[in-house]
């Protein structure tokens, strides 16, 4: 546990130094959200889609940041060195997940706050929007951790985002209500975590309370645990 926290602190120290990345992570989702608010000014679009976007942007950003960060660790030789120390594989993955969750919390708070500022009106409880946005971001970083194990180069790492996130985006119900999709695609959407993230946010936008979204939140949490487990399982102490 100490080593997990030590690692999380180290990762945060690295991020803190990289001010431009921190600024991008926090400001970029706000800018995009602002653009949409401006475009659909005077319509209920922001109220309807705002919560979803508040959940989506952090997921995508965190996926990219985490997969690149861990790939960098692999390529710089620091991961190889870490694997000769008492640091457990679980400590490494959990340390990263924890550090990025901290960053994600700041991001979720700022983005939700900004969305309110530009006129987003959420029918459901606001704290739940923040919780789901935070979980989405953590899910993104855990998926990024697992995906980075598959990438051998920066090019591949960056492509993992469209490879893993886009199919989920297409089938999550954002482009077409899920019950109107071909049966097979509807089934497919059931096994993707993003579906539940978007569903929870759609319900919150429509005025759902905690009991209504508890199921979806639980599924997201399970996917986080699954992604962390996968991240640990794909980490190798011995490499060729």
């Amino acid at each position: 546990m100490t080593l997990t926290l030590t690692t999380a602190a180290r990762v945060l120290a690295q991020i803190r130094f990289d001010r431009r990345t921190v600024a991008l992570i926090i400001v970029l989702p706000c800018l995009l959200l602002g653009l949409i608010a401006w475009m659909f000014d005077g319509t209920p679009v922001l109220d309807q889609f705002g919560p979803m976007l508040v959940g989506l942007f952090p997921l995508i950003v965190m996926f990219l940041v985490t997969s690149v960060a861990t790939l960098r660790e692999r390529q710089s030789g620091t991961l190889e060195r870490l694997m000769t120390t008492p640091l457990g594989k679980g400590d490494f993955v959990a340390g990263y997940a924890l550090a990025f969750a901290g960053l994600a919390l700041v991001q979720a708070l700022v983005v939700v706050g900004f969305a309110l500022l530009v006129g987003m009106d959420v029918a459901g409880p606001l704290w739940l929007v923040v919780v789901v946005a935070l979980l989405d971001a953590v899910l993104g970083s855990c998926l990024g951790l697992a995906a980075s194990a598959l990438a051998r180069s920066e090019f591949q790492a960056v492509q993992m985002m469209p490879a893993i996130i886009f199919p989920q985006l297409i089938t999550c119900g954002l482009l077409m209500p899920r019950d109107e999709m071909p049966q097979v695609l509807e089934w497919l959407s059931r096994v993707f975590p993003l579906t539940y993230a978007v569903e929870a946010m759609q319900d919150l936008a429509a005025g759902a309370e905690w009991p209504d979204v508890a199921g979806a939140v639980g599924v997201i949490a399970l996917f986080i645990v699954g992604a962390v487990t996968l991240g640990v399982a794909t980490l190798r102490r011995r490499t060729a």
Partner: protein
Amino acid sequence: MVNNGGAVRVRGLDVERGGREVIAGLDVDVPTGQVVGLLGPSGSGKTTLMRAIVGVQDRTRGEVTVLGEPAGSPGLRRRVGYVTQAASVYTDLTVVQNLRYFARLAGLPAAGADAAVARAVDTVDLAGHEKQRVGTLSGGERSRVSLAAALVGDPELLVLDEPTVGLDPVLRRDLWRTFRGLAADGRSLLVSSHVMDEATQCGRLLLLRRGELVADTTPDELLAETGAPDAERAFLALIDRSEAAGTTTGEESR
């Protein structure tokens, strides 16, 4: 704990890398409390052997025993320090942030870590650079931070892959002095180099070539046996001799 008096015992090690046997049937011993030089041209398998000893090399067959335990055992991770050839530290952290992290990983409590960090900084002669980010240091300074990151946990066995590459002569001399000091305190060191002249700094020498042991000797024996005036020519003589003897090498010189 059976230790047989040696820090590292390698028997019949085979390592396959990229579909090719880079080490075949290697037997090597690293005695306790000595600086052992691992020398050989690039591509001779030095790094692969070191990775097998610290337990991160995949596709190994044979027996590698480190401090009485099989290489890579969880119990060894606190007792063995490894420095990779490229400086493996975080360039976006300061010298002290790096060292403190590795000190905590080595199991030092927060209080003891600071003293250990200060000692390690002093050993590698980086005083005054503590608050500097590693990315802004020179190449030689970076590799010293990397070395300090292994020293900070005060491990029983240090496996150092070319720690003196790119360093100036004064610093090289100081580091070798440090290595001998550590050995005098009972630590064991396996230090690789492709600069043959560094051989004279070691208590014992292992010469590797194409994944095979060409010599296991001392600097004095090496010079006496080959009659060469310096280490570099002595090695060339040994290599010529092993070439002439055909593919089987190592046996007669052991």
